[in-house]
């Protein structure tokens, strides 16, 4: 008998949406997720946001961001001096 896809809740849809990005969703899970995304606007937004999030993360990883350097993102003066003494 044909197995009808079950209706997911948002929590399960969020988990599947992520797992799909990491490449481990069965065909059946893809169908149940797609059905949920048709009926739930919030999860559709989330699904798109995950795409943007991964895109931004890759960009951040490959080039950092060009914003002003803040103290927490630079070596402390003490660490810099210590390194300069070691590396000559």
């Amino acid at each position, binding site marked *: 008998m044909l197995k009808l896809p079950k209706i997911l*809740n*948002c*929590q*399960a849809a*969020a*988990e599947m949406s*992520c*797992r799909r*990005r*990491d*490449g*481990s969703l069965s065909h059946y899970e893809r169908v149940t997720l797609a059905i949920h995304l048709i009926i739930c*606007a*919030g*999860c559709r*937004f*989330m699904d*798109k*946001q*995950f*795409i*943007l*999030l*991964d*895109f*931004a*993360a*890759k*960009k*951040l*990883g490959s*080039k*950092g*961001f*060009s*914003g002003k*350097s803040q103290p*927490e*993102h*630079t*070596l*402390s003066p003490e*660490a*810099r001096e*210590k*390194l*300069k003494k*070691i*590396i*000559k």
Partner: protein
Amino acid sequence: MQDGDISKDLPPADVWVDQYGDLLFRYARLRVMDRSDCEELVQETFLAALKGKENFKGQCEFATWLVGILKHKMMDYFRRQQRDQSDPLPEDSLVEGMFGRSGKWKKFPRRWHIDPQDSAIESDVLPALQRCMEALPESQRQAFALSVMDEQKSEEVCKTLSVSATNLYVLLHRARLRLRDCLEKKGIGHSDRVKG
């Protein structure tokens, strides 16, 4: 990489710290939470570079060569760390709290008016994402950094972080939900956004 000399010649060691120190530190800081551990990793990188500088043949930019050494040092650092090996992982109350008992969002995600091509990605999203990543629990941050940011294969990430494939997926799922929530709270994708 933005800063650093683009020359493929070996720069004199006395300028390394000024020219490449912050670049290496920022690279480590995105992936390793502890500030002093990051400084330690930068130091280890410079020392290894000093020791092996004759191996630098100008086949890439010097900055890229240094980052390559730092990557190896970071993988060793991750392998050395003790992690929660429990299966399933303990609950993440912040993520669980995003949903009601029926599994519905307590606060539905809003539409983000932003595309990957927008200049706002560079100016707004990347700095906000960096801050949001800093707020992630260490295990989630490492899983997200290696799997998504650095695009490593999941088998490699599982090995480096000593986690099962199932737990890696759980960590990535939790990290994405927290990051999504954090970015939305910072107003990303909305015209009335708040910087921070």
